[in-house]
């Protein structure tokens, strides 16, 4: 079920897009990765970020997950500033408490899975709901089993990550992120570290997630077929700026910008 954009329950999201980047700048010393970037993403929208490496697309996900700090500008999630909080009417840098609260609605799946190797699959999935959301163990376990079943790994719940293939580990990582019931899911090149034969299983899980939930998805990927099938919108990045954006059909079949054409032919060539 898609979430209505003028849903009165989410009052704040009616006047602003669900995720809003307002002149976001990210610099590492002298290097400017994002240069006054503006992005709007609606609730429930599935957006794919494509572009050459170093174009800043992963940085966007990392800023949203609060793994990197903002240099300038503002990021709004559901009407609230992510990196700032109100001091009266003035926006000041947020403290850890604010960041922790804001993070709870955002989940991320990483290129290298980052499962906890000292825990079983089931423990990996229930840890955050129990410790971070304060769910009861019973509830967390029930939900985790449901999620693991969904990603096809019910049989592996007592295994440790190092006993699983990369594809299985990544599906556990997806279940772990979903166990927090995030409203936004960030997918950072989640199939890039996988052997080719394991990619399909992970993409199938994500495809189903995209089609059956109203979770907002931001996806950095080199899987153009997947991007074409699941995204509502594709953004082509280069040098920290959006070069071109639009529905997948438009970007993949009739790209306007030379940078997009060049990038796509390079990616699709192999």
């Amino acid at each position: 079920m898609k979430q209505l954009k003028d849903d009165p329950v989410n009052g704040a999201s009616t006047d602003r897009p669900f995720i809003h980047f307002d002149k976001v700048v990210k610099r590492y010393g002298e290097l400017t990765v994002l240069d006054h970037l503006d992005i709007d993403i609606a609730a429930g929208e599935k957006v794919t970020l494509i572009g050459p490496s170093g174009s800043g697309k992963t940085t966007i996900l990392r800023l949203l997950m609060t793994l990197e700090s903002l240099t300038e500008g503002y990021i709004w999630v559901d009407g609230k500033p992510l990196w700032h909080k109100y001091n009266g009417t003035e926006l000041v840098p947020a403290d850890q408490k604010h960041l922790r609260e804001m993070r709870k609605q955002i989940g991320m799946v990483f290129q290298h899975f980052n499962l906890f190797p000292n825990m079983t699959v089931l423990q990996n999935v229930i840890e955050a709901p129990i410790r971070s959301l304060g769910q009861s163990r019973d509830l967390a376990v029930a939900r985790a089993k449901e999620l693991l079943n969904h990603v096809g790994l019910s049989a592996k719940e007592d295994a440790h990550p190092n006993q699983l293939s990369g594809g299985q580990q990544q599906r556990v990582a997806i279940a772990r992120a979903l166990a927090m019931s995030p409203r936004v899911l960030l997918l950072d090149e989640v199939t890039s570290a996988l052997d080719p034969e394991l990619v399909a299983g992970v993409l199938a899980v994500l495809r189903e997630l995209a089609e059956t939930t109203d979770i907002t998805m931001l996806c950095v990927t080199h899987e153009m077929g997947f991007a074409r099938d699941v995204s509502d919108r594709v953004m082509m990045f280069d040098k920290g700026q959006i070069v071109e954006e639009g529905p997948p059909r438009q970007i993949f079949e009739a790209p306007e910008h030379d940078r997009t054409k060049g990038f796509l032919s390079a990616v699709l060539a192999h």
Partner: protein
Amino acid sequence: MIWDWQFAREIFPILLRAFLQVSLVITVLATLLAAALGLVMAVIRYSKVPVVSPTTSGFLQFIRATPIPVQLFFVFYVLPDIGVLISAVVTGVLVLGIHYASYFAEVYRGGIESIPKGQWEACTALSLPVRTIWQRVVLPQAVRKILPSLGNYVISMAKEVPFLLFISVPEMVAQAKDIGGASFRYLEPFTICGVIYLAFSYPASVLMRKLEIRLETA
């Protein structure tokens, strides 16, 4: 000088008992202190708390840069001047414990830094509370990596317990010295001390090497 088996048999139980009841007990207590205190120091240093973290680093530097006998004499003979009276055995445990806590902290730091960045990022992405991150993710993984080096430090700490004879703790070597002084025979008591230490340290270090190999391949 001829080895006197009769005399050796007589004093062996005394020395063994001193080793087990004093030297080893002090080693165990000081290890527990070092393990706990070292952990606190490592977490404080790693957390980069202003003022506290640099102060801890400075203290660790100071502890490591001064010899154990000086620290023993200081605590046992100087502190009473300002009204702090600590028994010899407790002094020994404290000084060895704190001294080795500084090494342990260093080992812990290495262990903590060996945790891949991705683990911390996963913790952030899951909004795990700081306490959970340390207790459930970072430390359990770090411990596996550092157990062998900690073990080796414990073995070397056991060999530094004889320093405590400077403040009259009745550990094994002090007793061997007393036996020697009373009987004018030093060959047997010190040889036995050496053999007992060897019988303890050598198997212990072999065990540590095995543990190291097991943890690496696990």
